[in-house]
């Protein structure tokens, strides 16, 4: 088994866990019980439309705009209100209420960010907020950027995907800070859950379009 296979298998196991997502515990339990350390075969992330639509909360579809390719992601773990998702190429995206707070495996990762302020502004129908976003620079140092962000409601804008249309309201977040300006767009369904977004990661990693199923 390749290293990649092992890693994906480990994450696939984690993704099968309960709400606390300690799924690698399954693998570890196996090891503790003396079973062979060999991990199960790589789990394909080719997911059918039926699976996507029939298992709400299980999958995310992400388009890494700089790569112009869609990837299906599954849950890899969660920590408090934050969930980390992983695709078949070992790229992870961590979100809180749908707002991206970290990535790993992209050419310029977002190492960490705040999301509570933005989420509160969206829930309030708009507002301004200050957010810090950390990047990893070419010298392995953290490059922190404090962004001033304005969130505005842009009204109703239904989302269509896989031949289905969902009612949604659209919000735009425009942020600027030292040497960095970006804008994110969020679509929320009537129950207040984010079902689609277009979010900036970093200058070198570009934007992610995220569809949450």
């Amino acid at each position, binding site marked *: 088994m390749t290293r*990649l296979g*092992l*890693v994906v298998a480990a*994450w696939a196991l*984690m993704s099968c866990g309960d709400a*606390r*997502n*300690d799924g*690698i*515990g399954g693998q*570890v339990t196996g*090891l*503790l*019980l003396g079973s062979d*350390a060999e991990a199960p075969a790589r789990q394909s992330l080719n997911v059918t439309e039926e699976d996507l639509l029939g298992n709400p909360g299980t999958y995310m579809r992400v388009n890494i705009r700089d790569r112009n390719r869609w990837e299906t992601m599954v849950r890899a*773990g*969660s*920590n*408090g209100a934050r969930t*980390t998702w992983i695709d078949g190429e*070992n*790229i992870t995206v*961590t979100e809180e209420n749908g707002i991206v*707070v*970290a990535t*790993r*495996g992209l*050419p*310029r*990762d977002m*190492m*960490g*960010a*705040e999301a509570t302020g933005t989420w509160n502004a969206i829930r309030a129908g708009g507002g301004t907020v200050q957010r*810090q*976003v*950390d990047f*990893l*620079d*070419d*010298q*392995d*140092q*953290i*490059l*922190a950027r404090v962004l001033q962000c304005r969130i505005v409601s842009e009204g109703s804008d239904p989302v*269509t*995907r896989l031949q289905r249309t969902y009612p949604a309201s659209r919000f735009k977040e425009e942020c600027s800070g*030292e*040497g*960095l*300006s*970006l804008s994110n*767009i969020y679509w929320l369904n009537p129950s207040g859950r984010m079902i689609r977004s*277009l979010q*900036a990661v970093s*200058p070198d990693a*570009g*934007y992610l*379009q995220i569809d949450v199923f």
Partner: protein
Amino acid sequence: MKRAVFLASSAMTLVLGTGGFAQDVPPTYSLYGTPGLLEMPVATTAEEGTLAGTLSYRDGLFQTVLNYQLTDRLSGTMRYSIVDLYNDLETSVIENELERGFDLKYQLVEEGTYAPAIAVGLRDFLTPGRFQSEYIVATKSFGDSLTVTGGIGWGEMGTEGGFDNPISSRADRPVFDEADPDGQLGSDYWFTGDAAFFGGLEYQINDRWGVLAEYSSIAYDPAPNAPAVSADSPYSFGVTYRPRDAVQLSFAALNGQELAISGSFFLNANNRPSLSGFEAAPVPINARSASARQATTWDRNATPEAALRSALTATLAIEGLTLTGMEMTDRTARVRFINTRYRSNAQAMGRAARMMTQVMPGAIEVFVLEAEAQGIGLSAVTVNRSDLEALENRPSATATLFANTAFAAAGDDVGLTSARDADAALFLWGVSPYLTFDPSGGDGDLSVDAGLRLDASYQFSPQLILSGAVLQSALRFNAEDPDPDSTPDLQNVRSDRGFYGDDGVPVLESLALAHFGRPGGDIYSRVSVGYLERMFGGISTELLWKPVDSRFGLGAEMNYVAQRDSDMGFGFDEYEYETATGHLSAYYDFGNGYHTQVDLGRYLAGDWGATLRFDREYDNGVRVGAYVSQTDTAHEDFGDGSYNKGIVIAIPQDFLTGQPNRDTYGTTLRTRTGDGGARLNVDGRLYGVVRDAHQADLSDTWGRFWR
């Protein structure tokens, strides 16, 4: 189609200005390999951290140049030239002489709105300095495309249209006495003799193409030992082309009659081509439930330690980490592991800690991470599991975790339960090609050697390893055998190296038994016995004192060695030379990427002296260093070069590929290597083994802990 419409309709802006990610295109580089016109310098500097390699050719002069912008204002240059020189009597031309040279340039004034940039420089400033020149130059840009340069030069740069030196006390330039030692600072020559004006224009047509016109103050006049290069006219014209940002090609019509070409290649140590790396994402932290966090102990029957060890071995292996030992208490897990994958030990520790959150019982709150190399624990880095849970993916997590982390000497081996794989292969071997390029032959010859090498090692214990290498040369170019001994008073500890292993049969490069240890908390030891290097065998012993949290280290090395036979077999009969050699060494990390090392002691030829080394190390692992050795040997006995000096460059593989890897591409560019100031080349010197798991080095790459 809906999706395409969605993408197309989402107009986004993501703009980064200066700071952090900006990448400037370097200035134009001259045929002499420094920012310049065609042969003349300009006052412009490259971006700090730029390394530029240049190859240039004009009839009678081939140059290989490395230029490095150390700070915003200061740059240094090392140059190998293959040049035709007039002989002592100027009666004939000696072809293809190898000359080495160094330049320095300092920008005195940055360019302003109205004021030009002004710089002062020394070209080829060591004796004999076939191109020795000094200059003051000003450069002003007009708009984005046009720059104008004017300057005044001395030495070679004062030979075309020269006039009396405005520094009247330095009116006459001495003539270098070929009997004097070379490699000396030529300060008696600097800014002496006639001066002359030079200048030129550069126009950048677009991002790729530019044109240059130059009025040169180098006449290339025939003179004893001067470059035999012809120049009918001071006017030269050229075209530059950049097929990529990192490459510059130049084509020039020089001095009215000569054609010249050059290629320059740029790399900026601050701008990693692989950005922040392409390695796979780590496993997320597995956060404990509130109740699990409250536990003060764990059930050793339900989850026996042996099972945890085996689970951690398997999960660390996914990350290229080899678990070698583990100790557990009710609340603490101490793990020792070998990092085989990540350049940054901080990243290896981050990956290990994440895996531990997956494996360890909830009661385990404290993780002690001990990196191991050569069988010895290098440090103990203690992190709290609750910090990992609270800080994952949070802003400022890197700084906060660092502040909450304790760095100390590795714990005792006693207490650790071994997790070493009893079935792991103890005998390892591999075959690889090799290529060595030695431009520092005693009489200036170039030597190239290529072939296959067989490396093998056997591990008697984690601390005791027998290793060796056998080389078979397939292609060897020695311009000629080394000259007769020019320094009879000194043993030929290095100047005979051209004789070593040149019989075309397999040779034993090294075969030595090495033992590493940690006799005290901050003290490390090494003993190496056998055929230690190509030219010497014997015993080498070393002690190093280096506290984990200190930027300072002290070492002592004592060796007793004999010179090997030049057939590089097992014998020591040919030279009948034995000597005691050793040094006291001090190491200091100044911070901000500046490191120094001072060695005091006795060198291989029995001479006493010191070596000073200075390194600029970037946090991403790129390193540019320089060293110089001076001993009590008289210059005339030293051999060519007067003293040993050189430039060291190292570029980690992950800098270029983005794939995690601990290997480094490195080379040492020496000027001539004399018999004085020569040190034993023994593997595994301790400072290099231990430092990258100590606090200062870990803090340099701590940003990768969370990656």
